[in-house]
């Protein structure tokens, strides 16, 4: 069975989804999907172990060898992302049953879990496949289920946000499809490994430039990189809390994975960064993204909006790290992927707990919440500190590496800008802290109890992991740097 792990990773949640439809009882479905997700997580741990010891795993679906059939190709980078996605999904699912009780009508619970599993499948599929067109298919699975999940939010604005996401997402996916088509036309293959070997021969043609541009723009639409981020804040804010926690931690990560995969593996480092001004472009967009989104976050009244904008800013950090294209920079990017997933899922889960008790997450209703829900608020504060990059949290580790990478490159003005960006994060986190701990509860508001246990367990699991990896970052660092080295073609 060990040799089948790469495909089982995707197949387990996939097959669980239709089975859920047959089970029908929502309690049972919850347990079952939790089970499936946990198995996926275990598989991803095994895969990571296997990859770290024995190198790249290739799995030929249908027994057809690579350029003719579809290949699953797991290297350090994939395995790392698979771990993040399935891990977050499992932890978040623990809280799902309690959370959606309040937010989604009873008869739709089963459908919710099915869509959740399908979305998980889509993301895992995108990450593990080594075939460019297969990426498109699984991208659509994850996007379609994402649209439906977001539309399940209570507010009617959820519908509108979901529609906007659908339009943007479909344009993005179609752009990727055009890009893949053009690449295929120039090389005659769809397999990524094969593409990377055949593309250099035709790298100087205008068609390949266009293909590259379309793939990158399409991915950036999904990624919510700065000028293309408009769909994200509302989608995250009005979606059910569980969905937000899951997507904020994983969806953009998958898009970043695609960006890395296409620029580094498929088109190759020299093409992406020497022939094209991609480096400067991404640096610029990343930095603008950090400042625009962080400043926007400061003025938000809805706490979910605050953290949604902060997600866009974090994408900015990630892209800046990526644009250095050095080993340290890439390590920082990958570390930040992991760390951001830890913080954002914890924060949004905690917000989910607040929604569970209060029914909304307006900033004004946070007043005095620090005393009423101490554990939940403490989690939000630790998550926020981590977003700022305070030592002893994971945020510090990745920022540290990012700054090192920038200084290595000699880009010290950028490093200063990054530090300034973190100051903005201090402001928006402070506003929440201020409301929660230093303001009196609103007159006439009913005092609330601490969040239920099913929320606290996953939240504090994530927070503990956050602090643990903040103090002892050897493990995550080892994996991230191994992945970065393999991407840049340096033998470890």
């Amino acid at each position: 069975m060990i040799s089948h792990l790469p495909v089982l990773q995707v197949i387990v949640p996939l097959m669980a989804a239709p089975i859920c439809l047959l089970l029908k009882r929502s309690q049972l479905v919850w347990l079952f999907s939790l089970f499936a997700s946990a198995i996926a997580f275990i598989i991803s741990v095994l895969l990571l172990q296997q990859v770290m010891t024995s190198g790249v795993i290739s799995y030929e679906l249908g027994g057809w060898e690579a350029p003719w059939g579809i290949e699953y190709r797991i290297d350090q980078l994939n395995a790392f992302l698979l771990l993040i996605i399935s891990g977050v999904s499992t932890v978040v699912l623990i809280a799902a049953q309690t959370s959606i009780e309040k937010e989604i009508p009873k008869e739709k619970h089963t459908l919710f879990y099915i869509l959740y599993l399908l979305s998980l499948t889509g993301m895992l599929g995108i990450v593990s496949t080594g075939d460019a067109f297969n990426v498109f298919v699984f991208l659509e699975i994850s996007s379609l289920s994402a649209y439906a999940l977001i539309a399940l939010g209570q507010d009617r604005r959820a519908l509108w946000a979901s529609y906007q996401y659908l339009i943007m997402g479909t344009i993005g996916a179609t752009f990727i499809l055009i890009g893949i088509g053009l690449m295929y036309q120039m090389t005659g293959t769809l397999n990524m490994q094969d593409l990377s070997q055949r593309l250099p021969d035709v790298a100087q043609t205008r068609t390949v430039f266009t293909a590259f541009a379309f793939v990158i723009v399409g991915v950036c639409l999904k990624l919510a990189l700065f000028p293309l981020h408009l769909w994200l804040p509302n989608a995250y804010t009005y979606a059910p809390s569980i969905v937000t926690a899951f997507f904020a931690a994983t969806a953009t990560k998958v898009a970043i994975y695609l960006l890395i995969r296409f620029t580094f593996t498929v088109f190759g480092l020299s093409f992406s960064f020497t022939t094209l001004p991609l480096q400067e472009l991404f640096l610029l967009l990343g930095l603008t993204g950090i400042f625009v989104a962080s400043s926007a976050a400061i003025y938000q009244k809805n706490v979910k909006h605050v953290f949604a904008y902060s997600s866009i800013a974090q994408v900015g950090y990630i892209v800046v790290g990526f644009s250095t294209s050095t080993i340290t920079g890439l390590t920082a990017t990958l570390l930040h992927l992991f760390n951001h997933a830890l913080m954002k899922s914890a924060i949004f889960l905690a917000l989910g707990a607040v929604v569970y008790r209060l029914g909304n997450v307006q900033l004004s209703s946070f007043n005095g919440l620090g005393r009423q829900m101490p554990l939940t608020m403490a989690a939000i504060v630790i998550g926020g500190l981590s977003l700022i990059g305070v030592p002893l949290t994971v945020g510090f580790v990745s920022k540290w590496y990012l700054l090192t990478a920038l200084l290595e490159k000699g880009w010290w003005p950028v490093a200063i800008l990054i530090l300034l960006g973190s100051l903005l994060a201090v402001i928006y986190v402070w506003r929440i802290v201020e409301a929660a701990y230093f303001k009196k509860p609103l007159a006439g508001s009913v005092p609330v109890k601490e969040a239920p246990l099913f929320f606290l367990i996953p939240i504090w699991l994530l927070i503990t992991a956050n602090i643990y990896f903040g103090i002892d970052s050897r493990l995550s660092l080892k994996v991230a740097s191994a992945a970065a080295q393999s991407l840049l073609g340096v033998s470890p």
Partner: protein
Amino acid sequence: MKDLFAVVMLLGIYSLLSASFFVAMDAVDVAFTEAAVGAGISTLLMLVVITITGRSEKTTRHKPLLALLVVVFTGSMLIYGTFDMPYFGIADAPIHSHVAPRYIQESMKEVGIPNIVTSVLASYRAFDTFGEVVVIFTAGIGVMALLSVGRRPEENEKTTAIDDSMHEQYLVIRIVTKMLIPFILLYALYVQFHGDFGPGGGFQAGVIFAAAIILYTMLFGLTTARKVINQSFIQFIAAAGVLLYGCVGIVSMLNGANFFDYNALASDPVAGQHLGILLIEWGVGCTVASVMIMIFFNFAERREMQQNNEKINNIEGDSL
């Protein structure tokens, strides 16, 4: 063009035209699908939606300049990209010389069915097709999550009466339809099994099957159609289709080969391939047919609900 109805009609024409183009370009399977899906199912769905939302469009265009800018930029980028493309139709372009020749030359030996598109679809790239089935399944679940109205309230006597009287006018068409439906169903089965030899296969068959049921629903009313095919039954079939497809892969895995390696399904590789393709085509057909029916039912149900509300409002308004 402000009239959405006309827009949808023209979209149908565009779809038919592009399907004819696909035939001219030798893509018979694609033309088959595009005709059934683009001209048939999507046009119908759009029509239903228009009847719910109304058919006029506001004249204002917002941000036309920005749109024009984006479009001109993207378009010129693409035109720029075409300059180095291999010319249309030349036989030594890279796509014709790298991966595809194996499919054309070896598929008869390796898979053993004459329709190369089917053998690539169902065997070489079976996982893509699996993904496609899951996409359709996702869409079905998504539409259900958005539109299903839970327990249907007991049919209001009055509204059903109105509903029935509305169908009386379609006497001729009802008879013709009754004659046609068995033929369509039979034809769907033919397409299902003939996919190995000619254009067709599970997906197309599923769509045709669903089209027959939709035709029935349109003429005899949703309530009647629901009696024939109820919601949980369709859900069961949709899930069963995906599971069947996946199980083929799992069985081949249990037999010691890779996922979707049909060679392991029978002692003779070619026989295994045949068996595998037959089964997965069934899976595709089941899922597609049931999901299409499911989507249409949900749309029609919303429409009916809305109309009933309007009628009740009208009746109340009259009595006041």
